[in-house]
């Protein structure tokens, strides 16, 4: 699972912001991720797959394992919908 080229995550005043800098001259939209969303995004940047994402979530957060699976699946679906994943 890979994030499309040109999308970068930056923290601005406590908010996790993703914009597309690879494409147009001026971007026309921004995405905001919450804390766990940003946590997963950073691992996606390194090339983690769905299982690795769930495992990472389980290690870092106090969450039941089927909730972790579900959360990762839903999150990836949202990212796909936003056209951010390859």
């Amino acid at each position, binding site marked *: 699972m890979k994030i499309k080229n040109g999308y970068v995550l930056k923290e601005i005043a406590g908010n996790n912001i*993703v914009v597309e800098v690879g494409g147009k001259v*001026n*971007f*026309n*939209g*921004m*995405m*905001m*991720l*919450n*804390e*766990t*969303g940003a*946590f*997963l995004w950073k691992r996606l940047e390194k*090339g983690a797959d769905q*299982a690795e994402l*769930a*495992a990472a*979530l*389980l*290690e*870092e*957060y*106090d*969450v*039941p*394992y089927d*909730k972790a*699976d579900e*959360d*990762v699946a*839903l*999150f990836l679906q*949202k*990212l796909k919908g*936003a056209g951010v994943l390859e």
Partner: protein
Amino acid sequence: MNKKVSLEELEPFISAQLAEGGSVTFTVKGTSMRPMLIGGIDAVTIVKPTEPLKKYDVILYRRANGQYVLHRIIKVKKDGYVCRGDNQTVKEYPVTRDRVVGVLTEYTHKGKAKRADSLGQRVYAFFRVNTALLRNHSKTLYNTLKKKEFLNDSRCSWFKVDKKY
């Protein structure tokens, strides 16, 4: 990119090896079995169980999604085992017998080889399992990583920005 081979990928080999009475040794990953096992450093040896599994045994089992997990049995029930990592508070139940791949017999810690059935291990396991409830509230001797609270579903929201500029 450096890719480690996962247990999941080695699956057919592992089953075959254990079925023949052999053992499998690998380095553990993650923090769920701290302080006994440190991810990336300590190694464990797994064999197919020859006797019924019991409380305090550390077992290797497969989840429904295919993931391999190495956790400790904290209770034996009719429908399966209740398992939990030594560094966790969340229990997993039921881990049914057909999902169990093997049991831990030996491991390394701080470079030394250790047996799972040693007295030292048994005492450690006893305290680890029975003081689990206290763990969140008291400091432990080891540097166990405290897990963060999972507050919300992971979210991403899209905001449009004017094309003007």
